[in-house]
């Protein structure tokens, strides 16, 4: 018995799922872009602002203590949720993008030399490419793309073959946001470790869908973003080995990240605070804590099981659509589907599906190199979450057929 058996009750906890779009019930299939929020998250944010609003780690008054307690509790919750070794390993950021830039600026850049290599797969999100390009351009290092296959899977041996004595970091997405592929990150982490190369795993699309255990993965850095994890916008985390955080110089400077400031010299605080200067997104992280509580109550294993069912239904359905080409056919995959349709442009499909109430994304999904690899400028992407239903899959198929008739 899982709470997910009563899916109507679960959906009722997500107010936006009740919205009408052009008079039709919303079918939200854009979860890989951002997730909807349960009432518990929305309420946690509101109640911070109506009852506990104060700055953190500064004031000794009741409100300040309450805000600090709630904010730091969110760190404990996230640490446990992803299996971090300790709460000090969890640095709060604005999202995955900032997490990766933090690693680029504070971990890699200070020692990067001409000829050094940063190895990432060809299916990375721009967030796991551009930060490395920026520091590479500055230092003369280079970003090396690891091959992927026609089925949209990582060429594991190909990636490992590219690891060499110049490789300074290996970056890989846990789940591809464009293709849905679940990568065998353990194998890449192990191969990197065997060569003494630190690894960074982009968990943006993994954490919302199945149980993640950072300590078991034993990667050096794991990054994720809160808004895809049913939490507020402007939240995310870098989970890093403590030894790295201790050794890394600060990224940004300001209040809270210091122990003592003077014009003769400044000393820094301990991690994670060393990397969290200034007033953080307090309400956002309190909301993220509420999202994690909610996910724990429902159970990540139940969520993963339901999504596997939805994935299989959707895959069957899409395979039955004439003239539809799935981009990516990985065996290990999430309920994320990119496709193109003969004679119809992705944007037209997305706009016209929206007229039927169906929200999907069209475009390059911030993965230009992946699109280039598959020779398509853009795809339509339908990405599902546990709160989606088989009825919604049926509604999507009906809408897609109608849209194609219009464009034919």
């Amino acid at each position, binding site marked *: 018995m899982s709470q997910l058996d009563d899916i109507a009750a679960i959906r009722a906890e997500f107010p936006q799922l009740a919205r009408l779009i052009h008079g039709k019930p919303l079918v939200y299939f854009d979860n890989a872009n951002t997730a909807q929020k349960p009432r518990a998250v929305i309420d946690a944010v509101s109640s911070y602002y109506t009852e506990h609003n104060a700055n953190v780690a500064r004031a000794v008054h009741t409100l300040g203590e309450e805000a600090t307690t709630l904010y730091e509790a969110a760190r404990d919750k996230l640490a446990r949720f992803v299996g971090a070794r300790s709460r000090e390993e969890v640095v709060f950021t604005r999202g995955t993008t900032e997490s990766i830039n933090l690693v680029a600026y504070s971990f890699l850049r200070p020692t990067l030399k001409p000829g050094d290599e940063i190895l990432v797969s060809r299916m990375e999100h721009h967030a796991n490419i551009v930060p490395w390009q920026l520091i590479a351009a500055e230092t003369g290092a280079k970003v090396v793309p690891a091959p992927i296959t026609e089925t949209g899977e990582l060429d594991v041996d190909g990636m490992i073959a590219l690891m060499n004595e110049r490789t300074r970091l290996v970056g890989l997405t846990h789940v591809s946001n464009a293709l849905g592929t679940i990568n065998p990150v353990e194998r890449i982490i192990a191969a990197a470790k065997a060569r003494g190369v630190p690894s960074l795993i982009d968990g943006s699309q993994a954490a919302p869908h199945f149980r993640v255990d950072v300590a078991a993965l034993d990667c050096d850095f794991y990054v994720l973003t809160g808004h895809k994890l049913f939490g507020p916008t402007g939240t995310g985390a870098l989970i890093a080995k403590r030894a790295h955080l201790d050794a890394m110089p600060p990224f940004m400077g300001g209040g809270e990240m210091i122990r003592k400031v003077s014009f003769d010299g400044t000393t820094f605080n301990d991690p994670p605070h060393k990397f969290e200067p200034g007033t953080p997104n307090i309400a956002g992280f309190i909301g993220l804590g509420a999202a994690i509580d909610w996910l724990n109550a429902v159970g990540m294993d139940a969520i993963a099981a339901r999504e596997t069912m939805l994935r299989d239904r959707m895959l069957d359905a899409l395979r039955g659509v004439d003239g539809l080409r799935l981009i990516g056919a990985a065996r290990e995959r999430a309920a994320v589907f990119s496709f193109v349709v003969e004679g119809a442009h*992705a944007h037209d499909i997305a706009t016209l599906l929206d007229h039927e109430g169906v929200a999907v994304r069209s475009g390059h999904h911030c993965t*230009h190199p992946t699109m280039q690899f598959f020779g398509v400028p853009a795809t339509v992407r339908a990405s599902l979450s546990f709160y989606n239903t088989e009825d919604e899959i049926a509604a999507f198929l009906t809408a897609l057929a109608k849209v194609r008739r219009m464009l034919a």
Partner: protein
Amino acid sequence: MSAHPSTLYSETVLAHNRAPHNCGCLADATHHGLAENALCGDRLELSLRMRGDTIEVAMFDGESCAITTACASMLTGMLRDAPRTTPATLRAAMVAMFRGDADAPGEFAAFAELRHHPARQRCALLPFDAALAAMQPKE
């Protein structure tokens, strides 16, 4: 915030998309221009044959969505024997229409609904930008 959806993909737009005018490569073109849409990766190439300050013929090529295709089809039609200032003038009229100031002339009024779809406005501007790029002094 969105108006009635059907008017964006009107029969006019869909018809142009199904059978666009002036689609292909202009063999004796004097000018070529390219415009890209970062959001979807679309590329549209416009080729012109110009004599002096007059555009004699315009054709377009490229993979593009129905909005871009229909707009390119209309624009290339309007550019036959048109002064070189026409693309800029029409583009300004389109932008004014998106702001809700006034309707654009002729068939372009079919894109009025885009005022409620800011994310798609760039699609309709792509052919104009390609034309302007074509006439840009090159070297």
